[in-house]
């Protein structure tokens, strides 16, 4: 401003008027931000399209058989997704069975039980579990957890259940190496715990304390408050949080690739090695050519649609929450 005054006081100089930014900048800024927002939509559509187009040759070649067949034969170019689909679903299911109670326990502890000064460090520690890269979980799994699991769980368990009907099949491992579907499920459980726990905690915290107090007022114990007041209140969002965890578990790649055993066949035992869609893609992609490449992208396409459906349901159930 002073500069403008000085300039105008110089004889012959044209006075500089302080201009408001041009209307064009306003328009450009608005449109640029709109374009960026639209890009988010375009991205999802493009991912979807690229998966369908990239996987199309495999779908065309094998039809529905691609999903139902269990053959994965690179020599004869025969590909079926069934073992990988079953592996993906069973690791994710095991992860939920272990991870959900853990997460709910943590959420209850953080909101109802922990002393005030202790809440923050514990919450941070739980959230840091989510910051650990998945490849580190994989290495921890492979080098630390797997040997312990083989020696102290798999071998003793196999000795106990051997010969029993059903249990003897499902829990018996032919080669107790520690690697397998169940191991992958356990590692995944710890990976999804921070997500489910922190969303559930937020949901529990949003419940008006009047509800809690009135329950305590009529003499309910903490457990009864959790069971009869908090869980029914936050129920739908907790299911959403669990679905969100499921979405993570279905697509998790590196940790699973390390510990799942990467076997291309189906086994009736959850302690035997298997593979998931993501682990198979990670393992074979760089050596794949031609139809195998298409088959792997087609696997990705299946994974995309399964996780998409799961995540859509999850997001509908969990109205926007603050965590990520």
């Amino acid at each position, binding site marked *: 401003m002073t500069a403008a005054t000085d300039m105008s006081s110089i004889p012959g100089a044209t006075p500089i008027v302080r201009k408001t930014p041009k209307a064009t900048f306003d328009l450009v800024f608005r449109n640029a931000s709109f374009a960026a927002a639209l890009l988010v939509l375009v991205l999802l559509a493009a991912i979807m399209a690229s998966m369908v187009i990239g996987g199309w040759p495999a779908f065309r070649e094998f039809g529905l058989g691609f999903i139902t067949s269990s053959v994965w034969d690179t020599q004869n170019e025969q590909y079926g997704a069934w073992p990988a689909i079953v592996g993906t679903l069973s690791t994710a299911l095991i992860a939920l069975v272990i991870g959900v109670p853990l997460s709910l*326990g*943590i959420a209850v502890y953080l909101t109802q039980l922990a002393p005030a000064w202790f809440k923050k460090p514990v919450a941070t520690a739980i959230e*840091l579990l989510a910051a650990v890269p998945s490849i580190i979980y994989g290495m921890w799994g492979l080098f630390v957890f797997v040997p312990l699991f083989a020696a102290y769980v798999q071998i003793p368990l196999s000795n106990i259940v051997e010969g029993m009907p059903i249990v003897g099949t499902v829990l018996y491992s032919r080669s107790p190496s520690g690697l397998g579907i169940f191991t992958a499920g356990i590692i995944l459980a710890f990976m999804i715990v921070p997500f489910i726990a922190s969303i559930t905690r937020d949901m529990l915290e949003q419940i008006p304390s009047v509800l809690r107090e009135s329950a305590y007022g009529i003499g309910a114990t*903490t457990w009864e408050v959790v069971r009869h007041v908090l869980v029914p209140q936050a129920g739908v969002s907790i299911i959403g949080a669990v679905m969100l965890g499921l979405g993570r578990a279905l697509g998790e790649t590196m940790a699973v690739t390390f510990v799942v055993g990467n076997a291309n066949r189906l086994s009736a035992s959850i302690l035997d090695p298997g593979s998931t869609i993501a682990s198979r893609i990670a393992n074979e992609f760089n050596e794949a050519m031609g139809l195998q490449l298409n088959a792997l992208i087609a696997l990705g396409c299946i994974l995309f649609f399964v996780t998409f459906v799961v995540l859509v349901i999850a997001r509908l159930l969990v109205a926007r929450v603050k965590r990520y």
Partner: protein
Amino acid sequence: MTMTTTTRELPRQPWGRVRQSRRTADRMMKIIATGFTFTAIFVLFWILGMLLVKGIGGLSVATFTAVTPGPGTEGGGIANAIVGSFVLTFLGIAIATPIGVLAGTWLAEYGRRSKLANLIRFINDILLSAPSILIGLFVYVILVEPFRGYSGWAGGVALGIIAIPVIVRTTEDMLSLVPGPLREAGAALGAPPSVVITSVTWRAAKAGMVTGILLALARIAGETAPLLFTALNNNFWFSPTLVGGVSNLPVTIYQFASAPYENWQQLAWAGSLIITISILVLSIVARRIVAGSK
């Protein structure tokens, strides 16, 4: 210790008249919830402890100065992988930051509660949790296959796509916390919307927006799966054009950890330690900024 004596000892406790079974259930729940929490914390410290024990042995000057060794050779370091990771991560953030900030701004300032904004918000949340391996496949299909080769650019784009939804989300959240009167004051002075946003709203939400970018940085720094099919890896310094494989820490760790050479495994541990510590520090710093700005 029997329950009856406890009751007698503490007659004035609110517990006094609570039926035994209810009390047991309550106590069980408390023990289980506490136990679960400590189990999760124990696993965190178990992983960190393992990284320290196994990683520190692999750290030496060579780790930070020498390039990755070939199979079965002694010595070497992971200097090229560390630098490559930096380049890819910052390329990703450089792509994601303008897009993410602008998209978040549109959602918070222009779109608000419109149907389109709600849809974009929803899709962004889906992208936020989409499996990262699919992003890798997508970039392979659009950038690697057509150009016939892995490249640092493809890696950077893949990481950028993963970072975008994180930045969109935090930017929007932080901007919506900025009080409306601040904007009105700007508008009353005659500033057009773009100026109000850039010099009033953004400035007010700066700390939170930086946090979002740091969180995105932490998120992509350890990503491995999307790099497997985009930047891949090699044992040399990357070429300045970023064409061809670019060595990076996560893929190096993946390849070295699963290889049978002791030297490689040692380097994988050292790399894991470096990457995990950096990410944890980043996350904690981001958290601090949010806590400080509130």
